[in-house]
């Protein structure tokens, strides 16, 4: 009996395992292998060189780009956390009817189902030189010349990150909040805690797993992003992934692969730090 059960069990999990093997494990291994290859203008040549890494790590451009990417990730993380936490807090503790909670939650999640590229484009008529923001401010007499920094700048990059990824914070934090036993809040209130003290000493610690999950999503996405940076900075800023994409378009595959390995290590280190806060298996 146990033998037949385990046989079906393995059969049931095989398709999933095969997909991960073929399209995750082997490709990542390929990146690692290719990162040691040699290359010229037309082809890649199997070899075992550390040259790709040396060229990468001894270039100041690399360090600037990594710094810029970490900066973007940090800004996006802080902003999405502050906004996401506030929204989740409102939904979980201030909206009283379950129906309204569901409806408002749905309102937050619907844009997520639409194309990211389109959502980026849709900022153009808003932020451009003759966009709505500048027109309105000029009509109100607050400014006399269009603000140039609104579109194609680090400002618009971070704005779009917040626009696209705050949801990744709201959902897990809201989930954590809904699991908090409401009697704990009353206990805190009875013990004389102010609303703010309840928030920082009871709710915030209990939301740590949700915050960690949201943070992992936002940080890994921004660390690996290049579409937003390319489209919203108008070529003025760079990111690690954009650097990789440029190497790819020049057919410098081993150089791109070496960069990919470094990026992967950086991201895994950040995530390992965040995973200490949360046991994902317990969260299901």
């Amino acid at each position, binding site marked *: 009996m146990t033998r037949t059960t385990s046989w079906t069990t393995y059969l049931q999990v095989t398709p999933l395992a095969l997909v991960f093997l073929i399209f995750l494990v082997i490709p990542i291994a390929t990146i690692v292998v290719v990162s040691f290859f040699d290359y010229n203008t037309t082809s890649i040549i199997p070899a075992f060189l550390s040259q790709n890494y040396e060229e990468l790590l001894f270039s100041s451009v690399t360090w600037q780009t990594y710094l810029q990417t970490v900066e973007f990730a940090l800004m996006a993380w802080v902003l999405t956390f502050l906004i996401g936490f506030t929204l989740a*807090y409102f939904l979980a503790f201030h909206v009283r009817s379950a129906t309204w909670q569901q409806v408002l939650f749905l309102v937050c999640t619907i844009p997520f189902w639409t194309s*990211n590229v389109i959502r980026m484009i*849709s900022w153009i008529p808003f932020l451009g030189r003759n966009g709505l923001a500048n027109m309105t401010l000029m009509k109100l007499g607050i400014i006399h010349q269009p603000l140039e920094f609104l579109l194609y700048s680090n400002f618009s990059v971070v704005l779009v990150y917040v626009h696209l990824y705050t949801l990744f914070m709201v959902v897990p934090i809201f989930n954590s909040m809904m699991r908090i036993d409401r009697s704990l809040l009353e206990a805190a209130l009875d013990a004389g805690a102010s609303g703010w003290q309840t928030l920082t000493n009871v709710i915030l610690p209990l939301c740590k797993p949700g915050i960690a999950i949201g943070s992992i999503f936002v940080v890994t996405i921004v660390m690996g992003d290049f579409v937003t940076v390319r489209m919203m900075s108008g070529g003025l800023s760079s990111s690690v992934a954009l650097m990789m994409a440029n190497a790819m378009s020049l057919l410098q595959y081993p150089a791109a692969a070496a960069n990919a390995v470094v990026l992967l290590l950086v991201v895994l280190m950040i995530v390992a730090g965040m995973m200490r806060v949360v046991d994902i298996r317990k969260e299901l």
Partner: protein
Amino acid sequence: MRHGKRGPAFYILAAFFALFVLFLYGPTITILVLSFQGPQGQLTFPMTGVSLHWFRNLFETQMVGDISGALKRSLILGVVVMIVTMVFSFSAGLAFRSRFRGSSLIFYLAIASLIVPSILISLGIGLLFRVLDLDPAWYTSAFGAHLTWTLPFGLLIMLAVFNRFDRRYEEAARDLGATPWQTIRHVVIPIVLPSLIGVGLFGFTLSYDEFARSLYTAGTFNTLPLEIYGMTTNITTPVLYALGTVTTTVSFLVIAIALIAFTIVRRRRERHGSDAGKAA
């Protein structure tokens, strides 16, 4: 606290929430309006008239590349990814109910698949196909790349569902003489169906909108997000907005269909559930 009068905190937070919703929807609504821009209109306001000019423009192949082809490919890919994600995650969810050797490994592979940046997976699969001298195509390499994104979500959702699954239903079915297949077909699947629809819907939209994972895996023929991205770099007319309106409408249609399916399943279940004890 819960039944008292609403304090100022409520109104401040509600205003914040409303502002966020405006921030979320404002730009999309703007391009929705601007996509009906008159034929002489620009990328920004004012509107020079109301017309369908840019929508017609969109589907003329020679003007803006192969939008209808890309749309078709993305829809097919999305549907296939949806079905495969539902089947594979359901089946793996069943397996994960018993602790088998390697279950932790597969679980952490799924987590890794979520946190490894999409562009790296795209690059890896692209390189793998190059090393093996295979041609990447949207229905092979991009299909696999999308699955590495949809399956982890599917698996995590199914794990959460089966954690809350009451196994007594299955035991009851078995006691009544159901075969293992009958138990799954008539007991397990109906119970988890709403979540399974959720997994499928999630899979479809993730695939339909996926850009980074398609980038080095789609091969000669673009999927829709790649086509859109290509257009943004060389087109500066409201055709872009018409395109935005069309793809957003498709996304909304999918959500609507899923929500309707969801409601129908729930209604049917309520009706079926209520006949307990009423049998002659």
